Every structure is written in C-alpha cells, then in structure tokens.
C-alpha cells in the first residue's frame, strides 16, 4: 500500500544510494572487484569450515592480546608485592617477584575484565591449535596438498610450527612457577645441541638462566615477531587459496574444472559470520566459566622451586612426552657427551617435521601421480596414505598422553614406571597397529559401499497438476530455477544445472590454465 509520496521518497533514497556508490566506483573502480569477490563460490562441506574456526580464534587472540598488552609489564626487575590499593592477593604479600608476574597478578585481580580477557586469550590459543591440527589432518587425509597446492601445504605446516612457538612464548610470559619450569626445560634442551647449543642459549637469554633480559625479548617475540609472521603467512595461505580456488569432494556435477557451492554473498558470508559468533561465544563461555592457569596459586617463579604436574599446554605435550619416554641412553662422539634430551627434544621433532614438510613429494612418488587435482580423495580410496596418517595420529597421541603420565599414574593408581613402559611400547607398536587397522578398514569400506552423496538421485517422480515434475529425494525444498541464488548445489543440482541456473564457477584447468575464469553462470 504505497502512496505517491512514499514511492517518490523511495526513488529519492535509491538515487542517493546510487550516487554514493557511483562516487566510490568512479574513483576506485571497485564495483568490478566487489562483484567478483561477492560472487566467489565456496564449497559447502562442513569440514572446510574448521580452518575458519582457526582463523576466528586468531582474531579473538589478537583482540584479547591487544587488551592484555596494555597492562602487561615485560620486565624481570625484582619487586616486592605490596599493593596499596585495589584487591590484594594476601598469600603473595611481601614476596619477591618479577614485575612481569606482578603485572599479571594485577591484571587478573584489579584490571576491569582483565581476568576474563586473559582466560579467553588462553582458551582461544588451545582451541586455535585444535582447529589447526584438525584442518591439517583434513588436508592430509583428503589429499588436498597435491599439485597445485604443495606451497600452501608448506605454508600451512610452517603456520602450525609458528603457532606452537607463539603459544609457548605466551605460556612463558606470566613468569609464574609453570612458565619458569617450561623455559628451564627448553633452555636445557637447546643448550644440549652439540657445538652451537651453549652459544644459542647465551645469545637468547643474554647470559645464563634465568637472566634479567629474557622476558623483554620474549615479549617482543610474542607480541610482534610471531604475530606478524602468523598474519603474513595466513594472508599468503588465503591468497593462494583464493587464487587456486577451493578443492572439493567428488560428487554429481563436480568436475576438476568447476566448483559448486555457495556464493560469498550472501550465503557464505552469513555462514562464516555465524560461525565466528559461535567461536567467540564458545571461547568466552569457557573464559567465563572455567578457570585456566591460576597463576596466583602457582606463585612466582624461583629457579629453586618446582611443582609436580608442570606440563606444557596440550599442543606441546607431545614434545614433553617424547622427552619423558626416551630411554636413558648416553652417546658420546669425539670424546664429547651428547646430552640425552637432544634426541627426543630436537632429533625426533626434526625428523617428524621434515617428513610432514616433504609429504606432498613423497606422496607423488608413492602413487606415481604428478598431475594436478582439484577434486579430493576420499580417505578410503588411498588406504596407504590414510594408514600413514592414522599411524602419525596414534604416535602423536601416545606422546601427548605420556606428557600427562604423572597425572595418569596418580588418577588410575598405576605405578609411574609401568605407565611409562606401556607408553614406550605404545609409541613403537601403536603406529603399526593403527596403520594396519586403518588400511584394512579402508579396504573394507571400499568394498561395502558408496558415500551417501553418490547414491543415485530420485526414485519416485511426482507430476503436479500444472505439469511440473518433482522427485521425492528433493528434500531441500528449494524453488527450482526461479532464482539462481537459491541453488545450494545439492539435492536439486541436476535439475538446476539442466535449467542453466547452477552456481558453477570454472576453476583453472588442471594443467597450465592461467586466465581468471568468468564468475557464476547466471
């Protein structure tokens, strides 16, 4: 029910909006760019969103981290805790501590929203690494690292490494009992490196442990170097993804040269925005309801104190576990003892990461497949690769469990030595068992049936009174073809493609296609 005035007003508003957009477009020519961005197609499979969980956690980490940096004092200066205002934590009054630890205590007790920000920062870091690892596994098991995506695999694994180090530096900043103990372990492992170890730690710490300069340096590393590295690598990761287009699982209507899914605007933007809100909500739910790292209970770090149950955060547990499980063998070369922790602390991670970095090229050799692939493998179709992946997961899990061996022994009332022994055998035999089971399971799955999405469409066809045809399998209930955006590329995709309304975007041809293909077909 619109009157003449209302219609006139609407036209006026439209004209005003158009003139603003025209002004921008005339100067920056951005409408073409925007159109291509907003029409970009992303596939809809749920596992492709886990990388986004990682990215969302990173955003939360940056925002909460900025807040924390406003109040944290990166100084090893010795102070005596004697607050004159605000909340006083009585069990620390009169104690010597570094200014850094004091600032964390004040941040937790006296800064508005300080504690929830610190807890959100820490929980987000733990969730971040879970998402990174899940994403890495997804890429591995589906063969998404194959040509042309090897470089993104390298960048991704580097990101994982940098994020682990970033997490560890953050864990070390509060300078509480756990922080100091963790740094002491790392100091000793690095110091054990033949020839260069003592030089490296002396350079980093500016002297012997614990020194007075290291916290300041650690803060610079945690605050500037690693975050810049992470953001830079992530930008490259996403730009390459954008350029190469997303890979997708095989399915009806999907080929090596097209992508089916949702446009960035509006569907994918809404999904991704919703997921970001869920990630934020979940992390702040944890931050508000579950305590993490109560530094006031651990007390300030003194090199002569230690607590049992001093573990790294979970994502570094495998390294701690590796050191715990390694037998007490002693090696000497050229008359010099090589310290024991070097082998489990540097050699084993070195070998593991070299293998992970080299996997795209190993994979080419194993399968004699040097071609480019935009369609993913189903894990069951590559039993050997899946077996290797499961073996690696079992190995990592075994080492991670070993990191909590003291707590396991305590909780299950099993002797500590027995737990270590079982996990030592587990580290050797578990991967083999995992490989065999995964290999057999893949073969069995190959025999027993197809993925649900490959079931033939239709079955019952219904003709309506006005002559239209419907199949009963069309459970999405979308309108057919009256609007191209409605197509979500699933149950009704055959129909939609037939009508020329499918949202299909051309991906680069497997070999050497360089030109950016046109956008969506409507």
């Amino acid at each position, binding site marked *: 029910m619109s009157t003449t005035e209302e219609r006139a007003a609407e036209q006026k508003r439209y004209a005003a909006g158009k003139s603003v957009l025209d002004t921008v477009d005339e100067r920056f020519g951005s409408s073409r760019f925007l159109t291509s961005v907003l029409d970009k197609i992303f596939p809809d499979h749920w596992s492709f969103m886990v990388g986004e969980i990682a990215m969302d956690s990173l955003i939360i980490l940056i925002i909460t981290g900025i807040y924390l940096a406003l109040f944290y004092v990166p100084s090893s200066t010795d102070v005596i805790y004697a607050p004159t205002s605000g909340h006083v934590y009585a069990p620390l009054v009169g104690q010597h501590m570094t200014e850094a630890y004091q600032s964390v205590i004040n941040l937790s007790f006296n800064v508005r929203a300080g504690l929830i920000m610190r807890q959100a920062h820490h*929980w987000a870091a733990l969730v971040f690494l879970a998402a990174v690892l899940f994403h890495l596994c997804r890429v591995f098991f589906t063969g998404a690292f194959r040509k042309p995506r090897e470089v993104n695999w390298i960048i991704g694994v580097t990101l994982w490494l940098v994020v682990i180090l970033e997490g560890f530096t953050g864990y070390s900043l509060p300078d509480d009992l756990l922080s100091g103990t963790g740094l002491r372990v790392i100091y000793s492992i690095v110091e054990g490196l033949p020839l260069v170890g003592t030089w490296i730690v002396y350079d980093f710490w500016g002297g012997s442990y614990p020194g007075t300069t290291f916290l300041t340096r650690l803060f610079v590393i945690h605050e500037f170097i690693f975050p810049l590295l992470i953001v830079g690598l992530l930008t490259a990761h996403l730009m390459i993804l954008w350029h190469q287009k997303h890979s997708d699982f095989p399915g009806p209507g999907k080929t090596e040269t097209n992508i089916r899914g949702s446009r960035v605007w509006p569907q994918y933007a809404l999904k991704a925005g919703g997921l970001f809100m869920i990630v934020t909500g979940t992390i702040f739910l944890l931050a508000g309801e579950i305590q993490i790292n109560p530094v006031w209970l651990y007390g300030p770090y003194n090199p002569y104190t230690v607590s049992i149950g001093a573990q790294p955060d979970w994502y570094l547990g495998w390294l701690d576990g590796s050191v715990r499980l390694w037998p007490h063998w002693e090696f000497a070369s050229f008359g010099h003892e090589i310290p024991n922790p070097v082998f489990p602390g540097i050699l084993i991670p070195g070998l593991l990461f070299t293998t992970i970095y080299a996997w795209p090229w190993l994979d080419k050799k194993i399968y004699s497949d040097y071609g480019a692939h935009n369609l993913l493998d189903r894990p069951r179709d590559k039993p050997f690769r899946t077996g290797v992946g499961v073996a690696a997961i079992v190995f990592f899990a075994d080492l991670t469990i070993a990191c909590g061996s003291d707590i396991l022994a305590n909780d299950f009332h099993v002797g500590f030595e027995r737990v270590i022994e079982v996990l030592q055998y587990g580290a050797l035999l578990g991967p083999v068992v995992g490989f065999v089971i995964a290999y057999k399971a893949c073969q069995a799955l190959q025999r027993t049936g197809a993925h649900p999405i490959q079931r033939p469409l239709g079955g019952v066809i219904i003709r309506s009174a006005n002559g239209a045809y419907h199949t009963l399998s069309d459970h999405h209930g979308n309108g057919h073809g009256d609007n191209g955006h409605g197509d979500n590329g699933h149950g009704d995709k055959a129909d939609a493609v037939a009508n020329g309304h499918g949202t299909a975007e051309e991906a680069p041809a497997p070999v050497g296609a360089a030109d950016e293909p046109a956008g969506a077909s409507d």
Partner: protein
Amino acid sequence: MTAAARSRRLLAGPLGLVALAVVVGSVFFVTGTQAHGQSNVVSTNPSDILAGQQLFQEHCQACHGYEGEGGQTSAPPLVSVGAAAADFYLTTGRMPLNNPGNEAARHHPFFDATQISQLVAYVNALPTITGTNQTGPTIPTVAPLCPTATPDPSDPGCVTLSEGLQAFSLNCAACHQAAGSGGILSKGNVVPSLHNSNMTQVGEAIRVGPKPMPVFAPSQMSDQQMSAIAQYVQYLHHPADPGGLGISHFGPVAEGFVAVLFGFGILLFAARMIGTRG
C-alpha cells in the same frame, strides 16, 4: 499480581540464598579455625593410658608387638615414634591396615576421637613404660594466622599465608603439586592430595615424615615455617578462586582436555550443523 510484585517474588528466593550465604560465610570467616591455629594436648592421665593399652592389645599388637617393640612382619617398632606419628596415622585412617601387606593410604578413621586420644596417650607413654629414653615428636602446635597480610611485629606468634606459600613451593610442591592436588612418585608410592588434611595432620606429617615423605625436623624447618605451611594447606582447601570452575587445579593436562573435547567439540559440531556433507 503486578509486575513489580512478580519480580519481587521471583527474586526473593535467589536473593535470600545469597543473603544466607553472605551471613554464613562471614560467620565462618570470623570464627574459622585458621584464625585460631590448632593445638592438641596429649593426655598423660593413667586411665587414658590404660584404655589405650587395651585398644592397642586388641587392634595393634598382632603386628606391632607387645608394648610396640615391632613385629616379624614389616610393621615398625612404635616404642619411640612419639605422639605425632600415632595421631597422624590414626586420624588419617592409615592405621590399622586391613591386611599387613596393604599400603597405608588415607581412609576413614577406624577409631573415634576418644579412642584415638587414648591410643595416642598410650603410644606417648611407651618410652616410660618400656624404660627407653628415646622419644619421637609430639603433636605440633599450629600457630594462628596473623590478622593482616603482613607479619605483625607486636604478635610474633602468628604466621602469614605469604610465608606459607613460599615454604610450600620450596618444600612441598615438588611432590604434592603447587595447589596441593597431589602427584605421584616412582615405585608406586602415592603422594596424596592435601585437600582433606587438617592443620594438625599437616604439621604431624612434616615432623613425622610418613613413608615415603622425608622428615622435616625442627633443625631443618622452624615451627614458624611448619605452622605457615599448615595454614597455607588449609587455605588451599578453598583458595581465592576467581575465573570459574577450578578443574582440580591440575594444570595444563586438565585444561587441554576441556579445550579440545569440550571447546573444540562444540565448534566442530557447529561446523557440521552449518556445513553439509556434499
């Protein structure tokens, strides 16, 4: 009913609870045991010693021997262990054992308070009865907490939590964990959580050194430090605990479980709900 009345009625329950908690909490705060410290007097009354002897003969001497000279099993002699050891093992339920081979672990006390005091009186009197001139530590007295966070110069008899935290992290945290949650030593010796120990028991354990814990004699650890640790362990039962659920203060292992299984689990489920399988 008006809106105001309804909201009054809705809020009455929770507000009442909060008020009750505040009242009970402040009463507890004022009269809590920490303010007073703890001291137990060992009875030297002959009737108590006699009653203790009867209990000893019924429940203890099969292993520990007549008049506590030690048994043929691994049971140690008790002649000169002192009152602190007897009180510690009995009040924490570590003794008597169901089976001589069992590990002496914390349990509900088998005897009631009166019986324990009688047995302690008897063990305390054993050096006199047997004519030995050696005797073990007596039940320690735990000094009260100072009313302020810093030591009060006018009241040298009190201790602070700050002293307690320092002495605890230096001497105890390496095995009992920084928050007293317990840990494990090798050879299957369990290091118990300290969340059930009262102040006297902590002081006794320090002086007695129940196996495999070392003895911290007064020459190594002053009475002041011992009292401070006992007070701090008492504090650790209910520490200032902002930030939400404490998940046992176990540290990164428990936190990792929560983050991966609960936090990331929710997000994985959300991703599955948002995305499709195709």
